[in-house]
């Protein structure tokens, strides 16, 4: 297993990168890593001190498919919110010495580190947000996901751990783009089924399709827009607004959130409820509908 400690170094293309220390555990020698189901993302720094993200896949998910994904990302990094699409893949043929030294780094991905808070930290920190901040951030999120939709693409796993937000600047950055849906791209070995609290309750067929973001984006946007409400913040679950078991059902939390939405941007209540009670992803409103409503709402 690849278990780097803080301060360990990697030599890649003649440059030395260091594993950053975990900010919550200073002095313990623990690297700054965040693990998901398929990979661990480490924060590393280059010689100039610039931070980068190194995504190291577990053996069962290591595949040269990431090279194909990288070749298809094209200029997506130019799209606001998709800056993390600037990739360098550590492949056996492009970095043989490093891969020989650390076989675990086969097909790892190096990408820009995104500053800000993970979306899940919104719920963990419970910091309040003003209505104009909610509207501005929601508009940025809607613009990004609608931008994917108009290209026939989908992130396929929008969730609290796959989005970095900056409330004060009204910016979003999507992470976890290795599972992005693109037409004619080889599907991942296991199709994204969505994350707890954000996956469509029907769940059949997963989210790896052109409509894959419709439900999860509706939940994220409703969470964002409702966060201005103190009542909604107090009613929120621990790591997302809804408990996973509540998704797609009527509940007191749903009523509270809809009331918060009605107070800030009434047209989104219908959009959200249409998605929430939909039979499947295709029955959810297209993301451009959210973008249009929020464009009109933000002065």
């Amino acid at each position, binding site marked *: 297993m690849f278990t780097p400690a803080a301060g360990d170094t990697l030599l890649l293309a003649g440059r030395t990168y260091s594993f950053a220390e975990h900010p919550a555990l200073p002095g313990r020698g*623990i690297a700054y890593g965040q693990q998901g189901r398929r990979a661990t993302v480490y924060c590393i720094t280059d010689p100039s001190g610039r931070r980068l993200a190194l995504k190291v896949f577990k053996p069962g998910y290591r595949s040269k498919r990431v090279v194909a994904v990288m070749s298809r990302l094209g200029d997506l990094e130019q799209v606001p919110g998709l800056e993390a699409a600037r990739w360098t893949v550590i492949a056996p043929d492009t970095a043989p010495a490093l891969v020989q030294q650390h076989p675990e780094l086969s097909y790892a991905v190096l990408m820009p580190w995104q500053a800000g808070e993970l979306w899940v930290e919104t719920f963990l920190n419970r910091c309040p947000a003003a209505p104009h901040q909610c509207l501005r951030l929601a508009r940025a999120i809607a613009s990004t996901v609608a931008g994917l939709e108009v290209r026939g693409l989908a992130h396929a796993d929008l969730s609290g751990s796959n989005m970095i937000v900056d409330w004060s600047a009204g910016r979003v950055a999507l992470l976890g783009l290795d599972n992005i849906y693109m037409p004619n791209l080889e599907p991942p070995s296991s199709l994204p089924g969505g994350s*707890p609290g954000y996956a469509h309750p029907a769940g059949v067929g997963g989210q790896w399709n052109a409509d894959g973001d419709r439900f999860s984006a509706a939940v994220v946007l409703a969470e964002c827009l409702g966060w201005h409400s103190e009542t909604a913040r107090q009613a929120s679950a*621990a790591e997302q607004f809804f408990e996973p078991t509540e998704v797609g059902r009527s509940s007191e939390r749903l009523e509270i959130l809809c009331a918060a939405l009605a107070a800030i941007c009434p047209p989104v209540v219908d959009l959200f409820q249409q998605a929430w009670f939909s039979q499947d992803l295709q029955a959810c409103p297209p993301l451009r509908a959210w973008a249009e409503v929020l464009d009109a709402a933000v002065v």
Partner: protein
Amino acid sequence: MADELPTHPSGVKLDAGEAAIGGDVIGRDKILQVTNNYYDGQLASAQYTVMASTSTPGLIIFVIDTGSHAQRLVDQRPVLEVVKSAIDASLRELVFRSTKGSRVSDRYHVGCWTYGREILNLLDGIKPLSQVLQVGFPTLQVQPGESKVNLYRAFRVVEQILTQSIRTFENSPAPLICHVACGEYGGRDPGPVAARIREMGVADGNVLIENVLIDEGAWLIPVTQTDDWTGTRDPGELATAYARELYQMASPMPEQYQRYAHELGYNLGSKVRLLFPGTPPELMSLGFSLPAATAVGARR
């Protein structure tokens, strides 16, 4: 930076009916007794699906043999040093799984008791992971004395701890007892206590007991290749009586854990027990990394 889930297993109805082999008694929500039979895999696949979160934290209790036989060397290193390294690696992994942005969420709670001449409560009870990491996991020290340690007493302590605390984890993943044995034990038979512990449970499933056995001679066919090791599914694979007892005390491996091991590149088969060799050390690390198997997932 969470990821998608592998396709989750199809739900399997718990319906042993008349075909139960081995005398299992299967209730609506609870396995009263688990033996090695056809239904083990099915039982495992239907439970152990709750994800660890701050509101439903996972509970992991380490129970470590620090008796005099823990003084020997494994791979030219003191046994307890190897164990400590594996625990540290496991805790680091739990930290990575619990890290959200710049903070460590308390998705796991950890306890550790060692047993040798006496039973020591190393972490002063059960603590959130972040608190354990703030001070660091303590060094494990051999307790010289009697050659055979008293596992019965250690499991009795665990039973008492669980009795006091398990309701706190009612909505959490099923608690995991991670026991490390360094050699043969003495005293009363710990089997009945282990059975009682396994009968305790939360909504997600019964308490799991995982045994890591550091004894190069315990497997009839020595385990040398980590990638090819398929797990232990029959007590007949074991060379000693106490290893076979540890097999009986170990829980069947839930399918969730098995899948996680596959993701890590291991080739564990179905219907194996949570019984791992301490050598090669990679397999001990695998055993210690399994608590992370419950950490994520949209299991609907």
